[in-house]
């Protein structure tokens, strides 16, 4: 049986972190859960510690979502988990769907599985502008990864051991989700997506504000071009052991 870790990056999520962790604990009691507190200024870390409902990795200061996620993947790599799932702390990602992601990894048909908000059976409806932006970005990214991924910004993902090793060594810093796809593709890993029913966020705010959307597009668009030519840290003993 696979050892499975659910990674929940959290930054100022005191309103939702406890119910989110509990819903995951209930839905998939066989999985371990780690919350990465990214230097929150509220009680996120204290709540997790007090409730004892998940392992806690508390970063000493805010690194941003990329640095936080990478911490979780490093933890997964060092503790030899077979599968790691990343899941938002705001309650958008339904805990009941976690095993659907895991199933595709366990049957060996994918290295990475993305829970997509767009494919059939999902009724996620973002705003018009956001839809256009995401669609342009999606097309751009799909040019480089051989196509087939509609929801390139989804943060609901499962990875096998090979993919965990890659992302624990290379993780983009801000707005990392689309770039990670390019990095995984460059390492020859197979990424698939399956439909999931997302819920509205239960609290907190999106990290991408409307005025930041244009910057987001340009930054990610360029970063992906650079990713194509980048040299990646080779697999080494650096992240092993412990």
């Amino acid at each position, binding site marked *: 049986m696979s050892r499975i870790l659910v990674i929940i990056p959290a930054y100022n999520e005191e309103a939702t972190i406890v119910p989110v962790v509990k819903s995951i604990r209930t839905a998939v009691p066989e999985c371990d859960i780690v919350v*990465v507190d990214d230097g929150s200024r509220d009680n996120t870390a204290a709540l997790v*510690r007090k409730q*004892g*409902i*998940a*392992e*806690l*990795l*508390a*970063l*000493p*200061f805010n*690194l941003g979502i990329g*640095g936080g996620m*990478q*911490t979780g993947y*490093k*933890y997964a790599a*060092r503790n030899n988990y077979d599968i790691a799932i990343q899941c938002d702390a705001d309650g958008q990602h339904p805990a009941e769907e976690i095993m659907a992601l895991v199933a595709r990894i366990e049957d060996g048909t994918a290295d990475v599985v993305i829970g997509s908000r767009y494919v059939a059976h999902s009724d996620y409806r973002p705003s018009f502008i956001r839809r256009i932006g995401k669609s342009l970005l999606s097309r751009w990214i799909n040019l480089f990864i051989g196509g087939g991924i509609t929801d390139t910004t989804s943060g609901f993902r499962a990875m096998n051991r090979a993919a965990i090793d890659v992302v624990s060594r290379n993780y983009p*810093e801000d707005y990392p989700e689309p770039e990670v796809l390019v990095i995984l593709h460059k390492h020859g890993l197979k990424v698939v997506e399956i439909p999931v029913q997302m819920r509205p966020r239960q609290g907190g705010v999106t990290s991408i504000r409307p005025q930041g959307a244009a910057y987001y597009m340009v930054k990610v668009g360029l970063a992906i071009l650079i990713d194509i030519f980048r040299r990646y840290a080779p697999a080494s003993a650096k992240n092993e052991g*412990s």
Partner: protein
Amino acid sequence: MEDSTGEMVGFYLSHRIGLLVVSVAFMATVLELVRRAHLKERYALLWLAAACGGLFLGLFPQSVVWFSRSFGFQYLTVFYVASFLFLLLVVLVFTVIISKLSERNRDLAQEVALLAHRIARLEGDSDHES
């Protein structure tokens, strides 16, 4: 500066003296910063090279005339362009250094989080389950 035949002969004397004084003062400042350990030797080298450049120009003003002629500029223009390119190089070097530092900073922060978790676990803290 041109003489009666229209030949460029180099700096005004006041320019030369100013350049020499500034270069020497700059070099002294850099060396003092290194001595007090406010500045690392490897980064000081760039600034010392700049100060040496200033000294060289002050001592051998004909060199600037030679440069001006080769590029077809006024010597002051050559001077500005060279200074600008040098500062551009310095800023580039600094951003490379900052990038490397911020990467190490991130790795260290992650390491702190992972080790703190491990310590809590080894101490059998009630902070975690299992």
